[in-house]
Structure formats: structure tokens, C-alpha cells
């Protein structure tokens, strides 16, 4: 899906936990997520902490969109 959206000329960032799959399907901007059943959250945290974790991940995804890349890139910490 990521690839087809990018093919249409839209910049896309893939937030996912299993980054090797994302690399296989051809995503170019990849942001590793927290866990498979809760990629953008952590049920062990308080609601407030969890929101701030999620916001940080989304901000990282946005900064990936703002970063020029020439090949598949996993945006690690």
C-alpha cells in the first residue's frame, strides 16, 4: 500500500513494528513502532505518558517526511 501511495506522487511514511516486512514491501521512509498490537501506544504507561509517546512518534514520522532520502531509510532513534 505504501508503495502505491508513493507511486501516485504522495510522500508517505510507514510507522510499523516489523520493519523488515516494511523493507520487503518497498517503503522508503520507515519509522519503527512500539509493538505489534499497539504500534503507537503502550498500555503500561499512564494516559498522559502514552499520549506524549504517541505524539513523539508522530513527530518523528513528520520529520521523516521532511527529510530527503535517496533509498529505503529506517529512522531509528
Amino acid at each position, binding site marked *: 500500500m505504501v508503495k502505491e501511495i508513493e507511486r501516485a506522487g504522495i510522500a508517505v511514511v510507514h510507522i510499523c513494528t516489523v520493519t523488515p516486512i516494511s523493507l520487503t*514491501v518497498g517503503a522508503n521512509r520507515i519509522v519503527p513502532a512500539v509493538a505489534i498490537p499497539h504500534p503507537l501506544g503502550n498500555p503500561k504507561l499512564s494516559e498522559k505518558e502514552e499520549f506524549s509517546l504517541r505524539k513523539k512518534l508522530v513527530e518523528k514520522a513528520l520529520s521523516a517526511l521532511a527529510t530527503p532520502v535517496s533509498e529505503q531509510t529506517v529512522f531509528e532513534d
Partner: protein
Amino acid sequence: MDEKRIVLYINQFFGQIGGEDMAHIEPQSHDKPIGPGVGLSNLLPKNCTIVGTIICGDSYFNENLEEASATVGKMIKDFNPDLVIAGPAFNAGRYGMACGTVGKIAHDMGIPAVSGMYIENPGVESYRQYLYIVETTNSAAGMRTALPAIAKLAGKVVNGEPMGTPTEEGYLSRGIRKNVFAEKRGSDRAVDMLLKKLAGEEFETEYPIPLFDRVEPAAAIPELSKVTVALVTSGGIVPKGNPDRIEASSASHYGKYSIEGLEGLTSEGFQTAHGGYDPVYANEAPNRVMPVDALRALEKEGKIGKLFPYFYATVGNGTSVANAVKFATEIAHELVNEGVQAVILTST
């Protein structure tokens, strides 16, 4: 023939421990055949014994790749096997990645490995060079045909019998080139092939052209504060009750849902329709998969221009590549027409 020792790797489901609620379990080792191993034991050549079964949760393996690999590697070593069988994983993505990794671990230890997967399983593309992967159907309904094929190939490999081409033996091409003596020279074979082609007859190429379908990365967005960002997910987030009845696996369609005026996704309004991961956390707080609350906050702060008032969702669980391509092409077409310049796609 010498006695041969075989170790089996399977996930929590085939290990009879549990479903998605048990996908987090760490590797465990048992000194007997379990699950598909019982059937395999009867199908393998007489000199082969399944001496152990290693079971690991699919989520644990994929979320903790390094630790899981180290532990499973040690467990394999302790059994001192002549061959490792992993799966079959059919079209289960996380399971296929785990089986592929196990194949690579065995390969690095000098032990051959055999698995079974559907051709679209991401484990095929990532690990095919490290192990023999028998082509299976896309669901476990194909177990009855998969096991005899795996047993036959495994027997050949472990007993060092000559291995034929992927087509002859029924495994997926490993991308390995092997020198063989042909009866006719290349120019003769090429002309034969051409004549068959001209006559409209079946012929088999000796070198299939590899298909590299890569898309160039889109240009970076200099000013996100001026663009509309849309959210798309393969994590199955849908309005409560799943009004479009998106399938829990092998999705045949996607949904488009309004988030206009919403500060975030609540458990009262939304849920997941995905059948391939433990739904508890997503149902409790759908923002954990579809981060509407965070995007809304960033919209208010002016970090993005606007959040597109709809999100798109499907279930990426055994969904065919052809369907995923179709969904995304339609979604992208619509987004381009709406002037959306950036997409955040989340996957579970």
C-alpha cells in the same frame, strides 16, 4: 542409513499454546514432536526423528528479533540436529518472518533448513536464499498437502540426496545458480525455445528476469505546516460495529471514515476489525493504531497544515498483494484529487 535428528520450529498457535492472546510468549523448547511435528514424523523417511520442538510467539519473535534469535539459536544447538524444519507458515506474515529467520540461524550454524510458505509471505522474499521453502496454499487448510511435500524435501536434504531445480522439487527459487552439463549448447537451446515460442507452445525460460518493483522515494516536504496530511492504516481501525464488514483476514475492501471534529478515537466510537493481532489494546484505545489524537494536537500547534477529515482503513492480514495494490491505488487517486501531499500509514 544414519539416524538423522530433526528440530521443528513452530509458533504459539501450532504449538497448541493459544491464539493472538499468546503471541507474546518467549521461546520454549520441548524434546518431542508437537503440532504439525506429529504428522511430519509419520511422513519423514524412517531414519529421521523429530527430536525437539521449539515454540515461540509470533509477536515476541518479531518484536525482539535479536533476543529471540539468540535464544532459539541456542535451543537449536542444544538438540544438535542435522536439519531444522520451520512452520509451515502459509500466508502468516509474522510467522513467515520468524520461520525465515530460523532458517537463516540454522544456515549460519551450517545446518540446512526447510519451511513451507505461500509465495506472497514476506518471509519468502526476505529469507529464500537461506532455506528451502516449499510453496504452500495461503491458509492452514493446505496443511494436508504441505506436510508430505515438506517431509519429502526434508528427507532429501538431510540424507544428502541430489537436489533438482525448484520446479522439479516444488520449492521456491532460492536465487542460487548451479553449474550443470547440458546436452545441447546454449545457441541450440535458445533456438529450440524460440521455435516453441513462435509455435505458441509452452517453454520454460532458463533465466527468469528478476522483477524489481521499487518506487523512488518522494521528495521531502519542506513546509509541513502548509500541507494536508492523511492517515491510512492496515491495522483495521473501523467505526464500532464494523459497518462495512471489513474481513478479519484476507480483506476484500477498505473503508473511508470521517474524523471531522474528532479530537481522537475513543473506544466507544471505534474498534479494530483485524484478526491477526490481539485486539485488546486497539479496542481499548484505537489511537494506539490510528493516532488521530496526536495529529489533531499537531494540527492545533501548526506543525501540520491540516489533518485530512477522513482516514482510510483495511485489514492487512493475509490480504493478497493484488488487493492491497488495488485499495492503495484507489485511495491514492482520491487523495491526489483532494490535494493531500503527505500520508502517515500505520501497520500492526
